[in-house]
């Protein structure tokens, strides 16, 4: 009994120490090559309901690249952190909104068990239809009325780019990557990412973009007490 208590205390101390010494991993993703032009979505503007909410014909958002070739919407995951567990149950819900019949963001990353709140900011009815490919993650199809109450989703198994779609508006879709630990991030519009509180150690770090090559670029990283840094250059796939 006493030994057990001691063990718990030691383990607790170790965990506290680890967080205390854990640092942020940051980096930037750059794109090499010129991506194909985004396709226009005329049917969105032509739609009686959605057209009113849009000032121009929207386009697809497959390649969100800054003027300095920095690539957004890349999911970056650190793999191999010993004892890494999902803290999804306790994590704040991730937010997905529908604005002007477009999902924002188009790429989201969450932990297993973490709630995903889907909002409808439109005065338009949507349905939110999940299209998982991994057994254990549920396919669901829920109606969401105009400015209706939020819907909540959560997935129990890790999965890359699980699709959310609206069948009322065929051009509405987005992806959610589900990870079974907290060490991941999605790049912002300047291609930057920050993965918080990574314990020191040597790991693999993987950057995945839906369209860029290679799919899931992997490199080694050593995280020290003050964190670490990892930059990637992804490419537009050759014809």
């Amino acid at each position, binding site marked *: 009994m006493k030994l057990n208590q001691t063990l718990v205390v030691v383990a607790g101390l170790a965990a506290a120490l680890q967080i205390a010494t854990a640092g942020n991993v940051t980096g930037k993703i750059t794109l090499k090559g010129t991506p*194909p032009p985004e*396709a226009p979505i005329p049917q969105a503007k032509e739609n009686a*309901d959605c057209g009113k909410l849009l000032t121009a014909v929207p386009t697809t958002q497959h390649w969100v690249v800054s003027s300095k070739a920095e690539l957004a919407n890349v999911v970056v995951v650190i793999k191999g952190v010993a004892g890494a567990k999902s803290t999804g149950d306790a994590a704040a819900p991730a937010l997905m909104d529908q604005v002007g019949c477009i999902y924002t963001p188009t790429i989201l990353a969450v932990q297993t068990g973490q709630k995903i709140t889907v909002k409808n900011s439109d005065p338009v*009815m949507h*349905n939110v239809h999940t299209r998982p490919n991994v057994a254990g993650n549920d396919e669901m199809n*829920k109606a969401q009325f105009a400015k209706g109450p939020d819907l909540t989703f959560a997935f129990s198994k890790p999965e890359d780019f699980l699709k959310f779609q609206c069948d*009322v*508006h065929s*051009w509405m879709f987005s992806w959610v990557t589900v990870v079974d630990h907290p060490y991941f991030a999605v790049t912002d519009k300047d291609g930057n990412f920050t993965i918080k509180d990574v314990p020191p150690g040597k790991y693999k770090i993987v950057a995945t973009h839906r369209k860029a090559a290679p799919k899931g670029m992997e490199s080694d990283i050593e995280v020290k007490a003050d964190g670490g840094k990892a930059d990637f250059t992804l490419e537009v796939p050759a014809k």
Partner: protein
Amino acid sequence: MNQSPHNSWLHRFAVLTALATLTLLGIGGLVTSHGAGMAVPDWPTSYGYNMFALPFHFWKGGVFYEHSHRLVASGVGMLTMILAVWLWFSETRRWMRWLGVIALVAVVLQGVLGGLRVVWFKDQIGIIHATLAQLFFALVCAIALFTSRWWVERRPPARLNGGLEQAGSETGAPLRWLFLSTTILIFLQLIIAATMRHEHAGLAISDFPLAHGKLWPDMSDAAVERYNQQRMEVVSLKPITTFQIGLQMAHRIVAVMILIGVAACAWRGAKTQLRRLTFTWLGLILVQIALGVWTIWSNKAADVATAHVLVGAFSLVTGVLGCIICNARLAGNKTPHVVGDSQCSTIRTVSV
């Protein structure tokens, strides 16, 4: 004649049912072409409402197609029920009465399959639903044929026999076998096509006449990944797979085989009374191939793809009716009442 006296109202009603079915096929095709199969998440209710009471403000976007499909389907169900009852009580040809029953069972099964596809999230059910839809259309068209004056008061078969025999001796290949095998090919093509459409992956091969830039596409995993990465999907599509690329190549090859088959039918049928039918068939196939190419070049525009589905259905029905007419005529006077189950093999009795 000891057949049912021709009932023109029954025939007209059968034609009406066939036309309604055609409309339903078109709307069903639009549902899939617009990716709207799941736009109404519940079934048999619609957004919690009784299907017939869904308020109009819901009828927008994908809901419009899916909900219209459900309503028209109910209409076709009603028409089929009336047709089956009418046949049951008015037909003296026993097999015709049962044909009505089969149609009724098929339409009910079809409705249930459509509903299960929605509530079970099963794309595969869509394949069966789409295939059964066209078989049902062919069945209703056959009922319309069997109830027509032209069919009931058939002219003596001798003239046609003569024509066919003549054609057969000229070319050495009996027309009825050509009809049957080409119709089976079209049916096979339908299954391939329904599988492609209900995998919801869009165009597995986005170019024509080449396939991913080659005569035979690179189907390696690396290549398939590249194809997916290069795609700029506007609507929600599943990633394409090696299987789907293979299926699309099969579709193209079977299309060529069908064209050859139908052209041969037209060639050999030219001097028979089936001339008009076979030439119509050939015309349909040519239009169908053009629509298939246009589907690719338009990046699978929903209206073009749906027209391709409809002309495909017409091609199948023409083949089925052609098989029926050619076999029944050849079967001659000996079995005028059992044309429905007469097979091409009965030709031996007359071709001697």
